[in-house]
């Protein structure tokens, strides 16, 4: 257990994470979303005509589509879309070296501990700041292997055919209102291509940050793992505290070709003024494997349901998710698996903790198409409610159209067991130490899958969240 003084997240956040730099950006779009904003953005990025067309069509779709009526309608209805800057570009060119990055931006990332992590753990970093990738570094080894880890803008410039082939085929702009929004104004995000039979041994990482008041963050990520390859991509983000609301609406598309493996790990810790509405989906082909490891700690409202479509025999999908909801937060997370081929398997593990007036929801789908024989799927959801006002919901759906499938789903809800607490206290632990130990045990299936740095950061963050919850 840490000996440092624990402060509640609301008090400490401002100094630790809640700072923001004075705004001196080269370009900042006006508030609200217009056709002109999209055209200006595309022109500034010097995009091909087909990309502008893609954006403009998505903009039309965005305006037509209604807000989803399921989920936390009250919170969704309170987002003021007209009061958001949709594109800000902090500097003119992308840098490859930390030393070349503008000082104030480097300070921001220094405070967040990125250079340290870079030295110790990272193969390559693209640092998302506002809407543009500022810093980009990729190790020589990866380049020699043929691995491409670029900003999405660079990916579009250097590999337009690949981007055009895959972008929007996993998540079409029509999929939902926020996918349409992202398709219209996406900026930043990562493009990753791993060639056949290449194994990337060190996690690829990117950090995100929202700074300008009412800044929308619309990164678009596309990861293609060619046959027989494997890659682990990690994202973790924080944002400063503001009084008005920020919107984060990302789209992540993953393609795992035959025999490939992709693991995508996220620790989301947006400050509590952020709406985090994300569409993440993967396709897995023959004998391929996709794992989503999803940690949701921050934001006012997160709606995110990582999905895996198992398209060919032998494919496997796994989703491991934790959600922590404190006062006034709603983590609305889940998992979707579609078995569209025989002998495919899936495992979903969801752990949630609700504290104070927090609400954690699980929404899931397991669907087995007719003809997808020999499927095995298992879903386990556990929810811990710490206080009387805490709330949890579970809404799983299983649609099974093949009679050879073996499907299991279990969910449970409880509070921290009095017996467990008593036992640990009788061993000399304080109540807060006992609580932390029980909670760490509860989320252990998740934390053991994280790179060490993240596991440590996660423990620290949960400790901050838990402070004030006991006694």
């Amino acid at each position, binding site marked *: 257990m840490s000996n440092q003084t624990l402060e509640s997240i609301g008090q400490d956040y401002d100094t630790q994470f809640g700072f923001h730099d004075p705004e001196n950006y080269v370009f900042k779009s006006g508030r609200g979303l217009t056709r002109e904003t999209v055209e200006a953005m595309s022109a500034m990025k010097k995009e091909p005509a087909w990309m502008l067309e893609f954006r403009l069509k998505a903009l039309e779709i965005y305006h037509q589509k209604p807000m989803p009526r399921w989920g936390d309608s009250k919170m969704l209805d309170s987002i003021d879309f007209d009061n958001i800057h949709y594109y800000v570009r902090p500097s003119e060119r992308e840098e490859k070296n930390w030393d070349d990055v503008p000082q104030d931006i480097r300070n921001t990332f220094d405070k967040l501990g990125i250079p340290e992590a870079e030295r110790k753990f990272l193969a390559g970093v693209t640092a998302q700041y506002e809407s543009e990738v500022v810093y980009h570094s990729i190790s020589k080894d990866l380049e020699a292997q043929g691995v491409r880890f670029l900003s999405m803008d660079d990916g579009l410039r250097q590999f337009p055919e690949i981007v055009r082939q895959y972008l*929007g*085929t*996993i*998540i*079409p*702009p*029509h*999929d*939902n209102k926020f996918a349409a929004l992202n398709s219209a104004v996406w900026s930043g995000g990562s493009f990753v291509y791993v060639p056949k039979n290449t194994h990337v041994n060190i996690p690829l990482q990117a950090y995100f940050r929202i700074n300008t008041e009412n800044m929308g963050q619309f990164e678009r990520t596309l990861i293609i793992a060619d046959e027989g390859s494997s890659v682990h991509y990690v994202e973790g983000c924080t944002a400063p505290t503001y009084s008005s609301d920020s919107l984060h609406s990302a789209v992540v598309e993953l393609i795992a070709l035959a025999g490939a493996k992709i693991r995508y790990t996220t620790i989301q810790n947006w400050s509590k003024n952020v709406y985090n509405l994300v569409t993440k*989906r993967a*396709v897995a082909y023959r004998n391929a494997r996709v794992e989503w490891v999803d940690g949701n700690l921050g934001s006012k409202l997160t709606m995110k349901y990582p999905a895996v*479509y198992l*398209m060919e025999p032998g494919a496997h999908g796994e989703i491991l998710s934790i959600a922590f909801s404190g006062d006034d937060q709603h983590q609305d997370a889940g998992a979707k698996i*579609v078995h*569209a081929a025989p002998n495919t398997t899936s495992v979903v593990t969801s752990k949630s903790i609700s504290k104070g007036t927090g609400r954690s929801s699980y929404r899931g789908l397991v669907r087995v*198409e007719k003809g997808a024989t020999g499927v095995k799927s298992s879903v386990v959801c556990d929810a811990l409610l710490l206080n009387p006002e805490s709330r949890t919901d579970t809404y799983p759906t299983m649609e099974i159209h093949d009679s050879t499938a073996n499907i299991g789903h279990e969910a449970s809800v409880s509070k921290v067991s009095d017996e467990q607490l008593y036992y640990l206290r009788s061993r000399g632990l304080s109540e807060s130490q006992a609580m932390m130990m029980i909670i760490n045990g509860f989320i252990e299936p998740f934390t053991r899958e994280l790179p060490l740095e993240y596991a440590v950061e996660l423990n620290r963050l949960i400790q901050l969240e838990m402070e004030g919850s006991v006694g």
Partner: protein
Amino acid sequence: MSWTQIAQTTELVEGQIIAKPLPSGKIIALTRVQGRCFAFDDECTHEEVSLSVGWINGTSIECPAHGARFDLCSGKALCLPATRDLAVYAVKEEEGSVYVDLGAE
């Protein structure tokens, strides 16, 4: 082959989609693209939304609910979230009427 009369030639306007219910309750959608007629199940294979309010892009039909696309000639699902192909039917026009081949219906 079992040809069923389903519409009048004059009802099929270039680029527009019409929906025709069959006595069995199933609904067939029809469209004309570059002069040629296409017929397919009106229900998207993803979530059973009507395709007759969708869009024609070249020779594919796009469902307005979540963006699933299908090839009009073969019915093949071209992108997610559709994972199952769409049923398509042979069409012929004779003497002002449009016929679809519903096979063993």
